[in-house]
């Protein structure tokens, strides 16, 4: 692809201004991506406007509208939803402002995309479980907030692995809304009804994974149940190191953030840029956790 | 059932029970066209319950109600109103946030050619006409919440009589208004009679009953006692029918007061409400505060009690100048106030009689913040006996009491705080004759104990019968300070209208 070079002249000697809207600044991983964007921006001398969409696609669309009205040079969006955040892309492109999606996708094609595919992260996590259990066993799955893009995609990835391993049985699945306390209560209740039958728990994020670990440890069952989750937040890495959490999936916030900003700057300056940058996930287990614990 | 053709309303064997109370037991009533029929009875006799059933606000357990030739069965208010019954409620049922005109026409709004489109101009004009005809000077666009209790009462009256009803129920319509307005109401009643309207009239003011009623029905503890033409009855007979015993000499003898001034008010002024009010009350003295509706008596009381601020002037208590900022301070200083607005300022409906009675004096019944229920119970039971509060027990909720008994609970509460001076604002409002007698005795007891009493009342006989001296207010200014020996009803009225 190629960016337009109009903005460069229009900008004259002024600092380049980029609007950034993030999915949720209450999510540790997203905060990290945002921090990396800011770090890079400082390095490159770019002025940023960072706003929090608080998980609302509507709010996100409105924020992009506002960026357009402010005539920013480019927009970086960490989409809340695949479909519902798409109008933001369309509107930005219609206003001839380049837009870079970071971390996750929208159905409308942006100027560029930097991130990873959530489906893949769940595949990695579930594959680990399948491997550990020898393709046979009873599994519980904790969903994120129902209907959100990340929940849908992570469920999709997990279900693919279930399909490939007919002897893996999904005992039960419920939402714990990405929340550690809710996950802990849910796990406690599950221990009551499924007790000794459970072989593994797949939680769609680390917060919930940690909640499950807490409940299992308190019930004295942790050593009999494998728990795997996604995101590789510091708490989860510590837990993997201690061996309480069996594995997590690392998503590279540093690369996603830095790369997104670099791409946006390239576009504005009219330089050549990658239309799609996929940053791979990595499985984190006790064996390799040290490399992530910097 | 045998029905006479000229009867407007016939009630047969009406009964109604609440939990623990038989409020009405086999009650009968016949109301003719153009008749004023008084329903009499002590507080809690069941009068309001009876009227609410007629109105469709409560459903009876058994019995029949005939309106002309039709039986009223399971009729709700909407239907009874349409069939031609309307009611002035004892506990003022108004919407404070709506205007006078909107309240008067509530439920039967004036509309233009679209049946749902309001025509406020029309209803304002109509309301204005009605109020003018009643001689009441209130703008139809005033919000109800800005009216005094008395003015609200006049609006309620206007609402009931503007309905073109065949039967109008008046449940204590005069308890909150002064003689001038009572006269207006009676004139209206006469006109209504002439038009063939039947009126059910409830009041605890005896002289009113004999002045306007044609027939009197008496209830006692929910029992039907009897019906007689008013001309066949005199006051003592009626009272003994109601009370079941005789009461003579309503007002106890006035004992001379002491010389020590308890409360002294100097040139108290609240801009636009009252100005230069100056009086003193001595130990054991009753100072009567007379005046017409809107004279500002309540406002003066509220200012002294710390409910409203005042702009200038001075209040002295036992020789000390005080600046009362809140009722809490007033009570601590020894001032007690029984409000005329019983429902608004008097009691906590959801609490028990006992909890209400001790509310202003709770620290006396507590150790280190801990309530001693036994001490409360003793006091509550004693007060209930002293004031003859009719209830199933001290644990009954005040919201379930009859109006008069609620008033007694409020008085008990104020007295419990052991004040040096009590301001009683319409203390016998809605109180039956027997209880009135008890409250008069109580006022006498208070003065005997050396308590100073300021009594605001719109009933001149009460003012004359109990006060040592009488202060008359008119339009926020004091116009006379009379001694009881020289004062007469006419004199007071003259100063009140000045």
């Amino acid at each position: 692809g190629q960016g337009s070079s109009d903005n460069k002249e229009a900008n004259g000697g002024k600092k380049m201004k980029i609007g950034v809207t993030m999915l949720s600044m209450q999510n540790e991983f997203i905060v990290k991506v945002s921090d990396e964007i800011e770090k890079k921006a400082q390095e490159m001398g770019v002025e940023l406007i960072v706003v929090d969409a608080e998980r609302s696609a509507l709010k996100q669309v409105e924020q992009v509208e506002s960026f357009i009205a402010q005539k920013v040079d480019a927009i970086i969006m960490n989409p809340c939803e695949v479909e519902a955040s798409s109008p933001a892309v369309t509107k930005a492109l219609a206003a001839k402002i380049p837009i870079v999606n970071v971390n996750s996708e929208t159905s409308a094609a942006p100027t560029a995309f930097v991130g990873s595919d959530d489906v893949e992260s769940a595949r990695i996590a579930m594959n680990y479980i399948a491997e550990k259990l020898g393709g046979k066993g009873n599994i519980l799955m904790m969903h994120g907030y129902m209907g959100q893009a990340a929940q849908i995609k992570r469920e999709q990835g997990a279900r693919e692995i279930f399909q490939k391993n007919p002897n893996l049985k999904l005992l039960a699945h419920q939402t714990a809304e990405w929340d550690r306390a809710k996950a802990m209560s849910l796990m406690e209740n599950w221990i009551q009804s499924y007790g000794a039958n459970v072989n593994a728990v797949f939680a769609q994020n680390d917060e919930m994974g940690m909640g499950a670990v807490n409940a299992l440890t308190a019930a004295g069952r942790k050593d009999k149940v494998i728990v795997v989750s996604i995101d590789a937040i510091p708490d989860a890495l510590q837990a993997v190191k201690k061996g309480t959490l069996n594995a997590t999936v690392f998503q590279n916030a540093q690369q996603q953030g830095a790369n997104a900003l670099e791409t946006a700057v390239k576009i504005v300056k009219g330089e050549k840029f990658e239309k799609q940058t996929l940053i791979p996930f990595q499985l984190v287990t006790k064996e390799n956790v040290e490399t992530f614990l910097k | 059932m045998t029905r006479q053709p000229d009867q407007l309303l016939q009630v047969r064997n009406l009964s109604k029970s609440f939990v623990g109370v038989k409020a009405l037991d086999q009650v009968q009533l016949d109301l003719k066209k153009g008749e004023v029929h008084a329903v009499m009875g002590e507080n809690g006799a069941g009068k309001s319950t009876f009227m609410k059933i007629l109105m469709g606000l409560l459903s009876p357990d058994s019995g029949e109600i005939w309106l002309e030739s039709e039986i009223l069965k399971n009729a709700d208010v909407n239907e009874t109103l349409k069939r031609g019954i309307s009611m002035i409620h004892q506990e003022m049922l108004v919407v404070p946030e709506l205007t006078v005109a909107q309240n008067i026409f509530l439920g039967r709004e004036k509309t233009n050619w679209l049946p749902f489109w309001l025509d406020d101009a029309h209803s304002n004009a109509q309301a204005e006409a009605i109020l003018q005809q009643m001689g009441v000077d209130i703008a139809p666009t005033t919000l109800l919440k800005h009216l005094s209790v008395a003015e609200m009462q006049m609006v309620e009256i206007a609402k009931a009589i503007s309905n073109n009803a065949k039967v109008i129920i008046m449940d204590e319509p005069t308890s909150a208004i002064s003689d001038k307005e009572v006269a207006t109401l009676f004139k209206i009643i006469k006109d209504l009679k002439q038009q063939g309207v039947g009126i059910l009239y409830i009041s605890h003011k005896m002289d009113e009953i004999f002045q306007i009623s044609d027939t009197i029905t008496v209830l006692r503890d929910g029992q039907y006692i009897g019906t007689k033409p008013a001309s066949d009855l005199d006051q003592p007979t009626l009272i003994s029918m109601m009370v079941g015993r005789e009461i003579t000499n309503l007002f106890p003898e006035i004992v001379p007061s002491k010389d020590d001034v308890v409360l002294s008010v100097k040139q108290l002024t609240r801009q636009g409400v009252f100005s230069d009010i100056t009086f003193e009350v001595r130990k054991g003295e009753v100072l009567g505060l007379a005046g017409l509706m809107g004279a500002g008596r309540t406002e003066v009381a509220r200012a002294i009690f710390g409910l409203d601020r005042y702009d200038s002037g001075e209040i002295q208590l036992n020789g000390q100048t005080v600046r009362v900022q809140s009722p809490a301070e007033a009570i601590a200083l020894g001032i007690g106030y029984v409000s005329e607005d019983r429902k608004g300022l008097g009691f906590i409906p959801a609490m028990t009689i006992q909890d209400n009675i001790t509310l202003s004096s709770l620290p006396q019944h507590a150790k280190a913040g801990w309530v001693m229920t036994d001490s409360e119970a003793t006091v509550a039971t004693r007060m209930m006996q002293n004031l003859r509060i009719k209830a199933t027990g001290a644990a009954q909720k005040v919201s379930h009491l009859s109006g008069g008994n609620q008033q007694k609970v409020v008085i008990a509460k104020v007295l419990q705080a052991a004040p040096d001076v009590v301001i009683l604002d319409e203390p016998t409002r809605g109180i039956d004759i027997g209880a009135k007698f008890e409250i008069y005795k109580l006022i006498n007891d208070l003065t005997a104990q050396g308590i100073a009493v300021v009594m605001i009342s719109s009933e001149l006989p009460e003012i004359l019968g109990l006060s040592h001296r009488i202060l008359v207010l008119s339009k926020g200014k004091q116009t006379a300070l009379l001694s009881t020996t020289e004062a007469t009803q006419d004199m007071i009225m003259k100063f009140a209208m000045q």
Partner: protein
Amino acid sequence: MNTILARSKNLGQYGIFGAFVVICLGLAVINPQFMTVSNWTIIITQVSINALLAFGVTFVIITGGIDLSLGSMVAVTGVVAASLAHPDTYPVIVPIGVGVLSGVAMGALNGLVITKSKVPPFIVTLGMMTIGRGLALILSKGRPISNLSDSFNFIGGGSVLGIPFPILILVVFFILCTLLLKKTVLGRYIYAVGGNEQAATASGIRVNKVKMAVYTLCGGLAGLAGILLTARITTGQPNAGAGFELDAIAAAIIGGTSTSGGTGTMTGTLIGALLIGVISNGLDLLNVTSYYQQVVMGAIIIGAVVLDSWNQKK
């Protein structure tokens, strides 16, 4: 000039107007971008959804009730409308009609339970909030419904004579709701029921019917808001609208509607909704960092209402 002054004085009665003007002027001084036509077009478009919900809940609050199920009703109606709004299926009136009707049905159900059972509105509508969220997920199988027709999306994104369609809807319904509340018998009854339910009953008003009406109306407006939202994000999103109820109730109360019932105006509510929208827009324009945004947002809203209450005392 005089009439403008007089009129703005008149507006002063609508609670928060003074504070609103002060905040707008402040923002205009700090950031010249704020007072542009394009920015205000954005603000009002953004406010339209919350305002519609707030109008509905204003009726409810005036009767002394509350509706916590607004956000879920938005989700359900959005999902229902979206599932009927694919291109080349039904004419656009079908998703709109059925969407609004599903809001009406949920509102009526709220009203029915509240009037028949005497269960507090807080519990009934809180229950409906949970039920509605579940329904939206069931109906959509937990997935966003996209690929909607252009004519449907026009509701959220189109313009007529340069005015965005949501603003037109907002204006129309503001006028309709104001007229209903101020000029019709039902409006009068709504005030009466909230002002003194006993008095309303004693005046022959069928209180339950009035309550049914307001909850149903509120549901219908939520349905409309749901359609607007869906068209705006061109997707029926089962998790949309979470927390909208609090914003809508806040707009009503900021605008002077009392939770104890009996008072409130649509103008006040509109200003309340605009105030929230303006603050949120302003904080984004000034690039206040997101954590501090929340602190400042909360503080300004409280501050504005405090200012207003002082103002009214005078």
